[in-house]
């Protein structure tokens, strides 16, 4: 063994499953330079072990189990019309292609071509899984699951119509006030996306007459005022003059109408 070969063996013995061997030991015995170097970098190698270990917070586990639970429920209950119509084979090939891209040794900080179809594919598939989790949670029996589903909706692209429609359904029909309120807030990103903003705005206007709970009515009115949505004016005027509606809500509707001028 020469010095060159010995260098690559210097860290061998400290890695599980690796062994430096007798040849290396023989070289060290006869070579002062390698002996010194080996003990020096060996010490440095050992001291890396003394660096403090960063521990993740408890949130990581919580989020993992939430995802897993939702995914399992989603497998059984949610249908994804377009994608499930594809033959299973195509998805497996696509996944294999994506993983091939992973295996090509793309390193940290390497700027690589945005147009690589495999990577685009991979991101799309991850996005569709987020959609699956959000949709499945929003359709659960328990209000706290549905609430989590609403917060998951922030992780999908705001151009995702299916998730937006589910949020609208939740705003209009969920029996739990907190879930309805959260869903109103979760519609905000969709009113900023070119693909969905018209639908989202219309959905908020149409939700207004369906609500009877004052706190949700106020949330919707504030939202419309913020959007300066003039198409909501007729409904707001009707509310102002409806004696059956809560007086606080009527005042809020009046305020919103002024803001829209």
């Amino acid at each position, binding site marked *: 063994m020469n010095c060159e070969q010995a260098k690559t063996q210097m860290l061998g013995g400290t890695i599980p499953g690796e062994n430096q061997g007798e040849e290396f030991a023989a070289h060290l015995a006869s070579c002062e330079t390698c002996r010194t170097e080996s003990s020096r970098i060996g010490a*440095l190698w050992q001291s*890396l072990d003394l660096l403090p270990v960063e*521990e*993740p917070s408890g949130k990581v586990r919580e989020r993992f189990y939430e995802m*897993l639970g939702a995914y*399992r429920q989603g497998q059984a209950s949610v249908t994804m019309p377009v994608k499930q119509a594809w033959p299973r084979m195509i998805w497996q090939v696509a996944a294999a292609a994506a993983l091939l*891209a992973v295996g090509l040794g*793309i390193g940290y900080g390497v700027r690589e071509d945005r147009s690589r179809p495999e990577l685009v594919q991979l991101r799309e598939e*991850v996005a569709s*899984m987020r959609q699956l989790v959000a949709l499945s949670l929003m359709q659960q029996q328990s209000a706290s699951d549905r609430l989590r589903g609403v917060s998951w909706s922030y992780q999908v692209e705001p151009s995702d119509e299916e998730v937006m429609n589910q949020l609208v359904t939740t705003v209009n029909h969920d029996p739990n006030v907190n879930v309805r309120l959260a869903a109103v807030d979760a519609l905000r990103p969709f009113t900023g996306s070119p693909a969905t903003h018209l639908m989202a705005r219309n959905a908020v206007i149409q939700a207004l007459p369906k609500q009877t709970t004052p706190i949700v009515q106020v949330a919707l009115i504030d939202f419309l005022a913020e959007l300066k949505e003039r198409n909501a004016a007729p409904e707001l005027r009707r509310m102002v003059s409806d004696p059956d509606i809560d007086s606080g809500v009527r005042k809020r509707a009046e305020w919103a109408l002024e803001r829209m001028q």
Partner: protein
Amino acid sequence: MSRVFSYVTVSTLVNTRDNVVMAEVGAGQVARLAVLFERHHRALFRYFVSMNGNREVAEDLVQEVFFRMLRYRTSYDPAQSFTAWMYQIARNAGVDQVRKRGSAQVVDIDSFVDRRAELVSASPGPEESVSRGQDLALLRRAMDRLPEDKREILVLSRFQGMKHEDIAEVLGCEVGTVKVRVYRAIRALEQIYFALEKEKAS
């Protein structure tokens, strides 16, 4: 949080090999992914923190890795090392994250790394290491200054205790190349360490 324990029993945590468990996940027992999560999420977190210096981003990335494992579970080949597969996914998630955040994040990481180095030097840790002839705070800073590819190979081989053949699979190179690269990385670390030591002394 009772759900946590209904998925994982102590015996499955201890007894079954990773590649067998992942094959089960691939075959439809998705709850078994929890076993792999419990075994590997801390190491993955440490990998990401070492690579980008940001705890919050590292936590997001850990989540992303298990997300992708679930999504691509049917493509896992049990003949392949699970650890290698996991770090391939992890690297790819890291690359996507860097792209998503853009150059603004680079500034954040730098300032974070400096702050972290200060925190380390303020802690009582270094004293115990002085006796061993190494200053831990300095070592930490040297690690942070190491070029990413060198830092990565040290993190994988030293912190994660990965076998050279698994690292070769993750990085897409020969086992012999891994040995040479680990050696070069530790030498580069040594040089940066000494440079920082001189800086400190002057």
